[in-house]
């Protein structure tokens, strides 16, 4: 579904992503783990169109992404929950969801999707009129994931969803992602938290210094924790 070939991202002299290749297949849950500064966020930004790659090719269902402007990529079916959650902090929970549903241009579907989010995270329904920026970190992450789902994406990309969250909340987020995967959604999870990633994902890429160091099935990695320890 998503093919990345030979991707290089530079910020001036700093090489963030170095000739990287990876792919995400339809219906898969793929994890990308790596320490801080390994280039995870840069890959996500390149997919989203927030940075222009120095070289490389990104295709989604055969469409060259670099020919699609940033704001049109969501219409292809790619939905990105960026690092830092990408909320609109001064708007209410519900308004955040409405904005995230705007690309559908269908108010009925938006309403239906909002209800679906409230079923998944009931606390959000209670807090629907509260400004998103005043919620707890975990609740904010629930809003972020919900926003990612509002546009009925085919591929959901999450960047560091566990950052700053308590372990119990991380567990809840993990459960929700597994559930979405079971419903047939394709998910790409970019994470520092290898444990969470291995629990959720089927296939794992391990990154370091902007390149793929290891690529394996999640089960195998869980069975050989020394590889993870060594690589991270």
């Amino acid at each position: 579904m998503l093919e990345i070939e030979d991707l290089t991202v530079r910020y001036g002299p700093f090489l963030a992503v170095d000739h990287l290749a990876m792919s995400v297949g339809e219906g898969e849950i793929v994890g990308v783990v790596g320490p801080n500064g390994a280039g995870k966020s840069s890959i996500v930004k390149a997919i989203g169109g927030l940075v222009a790659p120095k070289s490389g090719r990104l295709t989604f269902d055969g469409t060259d992404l670099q020919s699609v402007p940033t704001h049109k990529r969501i219409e292809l079916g790619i939905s990105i929950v960026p690092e830092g959650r990408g909320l609109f902090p001064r708007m209410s929970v519900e308004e955040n969801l409405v904005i995230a549903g705007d690309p559908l241009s269908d108010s009925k579907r938006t309403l239906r999707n909002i209800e679906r989010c409230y079923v998944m995270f009931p606390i959000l329904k209670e807090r629907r009129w509260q400004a998103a920026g005043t919620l707890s970190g975990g609740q904010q992450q629930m809003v972020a994931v919900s926003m990612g789902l509002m546009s009925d994406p085919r591929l959901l990309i999450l960047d560091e969803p566990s950052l700053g969250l308590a372990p119990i909340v991380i567990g809840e987020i993990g459960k929700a992602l597994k559930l979405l995967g079971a419903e047939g959604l394709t998910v790409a999870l970019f994470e520092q938290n290898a444990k969470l990633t291995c629990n959720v994902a089927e296939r794992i890429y391990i990154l370091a210094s902007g390149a793929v160091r290891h690529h394996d099935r999640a089960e195998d990695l869980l069975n050989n924790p020394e590889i993870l320890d060594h690589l991270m």
Partner: protein
Amino acid sequence: MSDANLIIFLSTISTGLILGSIFALVAVGVTIVYGSIWMPNAANGQFFVLAALLGWTMTVSWGIHPAIAAILVIGVSVPLSYGLEYILVRRFYDVPNRNISYFVLSLGITQILTGIFAATYGRWSDQFQLPPLVSGITFIGPLPVANNRLMVLALALSILAALFALLRYHRYGRAIRAVFQNRDAAALRGVNVKASYSLSFALGNAVIFAGGILFALAYSFDLTVAWTMSITAFAIMIIGGPGSVLGAVIVGMVFGFTQAAVSTVASPTIAAFSYLGAMLLILLFKPSGLFAR
């Protein structure tokens, strides 16, 4: 309360409302542009006067009905804004510290427009007076108020209400606010950030134009109004919190009442300074503005 005192009291309120709603319009226009594209538009006073002058030409020279002229003036602002945005403003969108570039740019625009106005309209500068929208007078208690000014008040408040509705309930309005709050996140949610910038610039200027034409319908004006209005709008925006539309409306109304009340109990000269005093005092305690976010 004697009749004379009641008249003074009521006129303070009516003046506060009318002036406040016009101040609010202009400050909202300035704050929308600042909040979205980071442009502290020092030329807002000149845009305001441009609207008033266009209204004067349309009604007095061409004989167009003032209501139609008002709509035309606000309409004209849209292509003007898009033209200016296309030629100049958009070139700075990716400059990191563009607010200072924009400030200098808008000062340049101010100078140019000031020169153009002086050369073209200067010799009529004592006669800028538009025909009223409606005639007649309504008594509020013992105070006679021209229906025309009541109409201006109603229009200013309706425009503010429509603007709030747009920003809150329309997809484009939501997009503008989303870009205010988190530009990258908005792009990822499918908002065309640059189109939203252009739209905010045009919308902000349209509101300033609306303020200008309504002012011209309520009051006689001359070219010096531009400078006073620039300072006032900036002060309102800074006190209200740059980028805050609600702050601009509330502080704009408060300014209107302050001017009316201080000039009643003290003098018009002190009233003119009271703004700046209030601004300094508030910024002393809340440097980011009252409704800063």
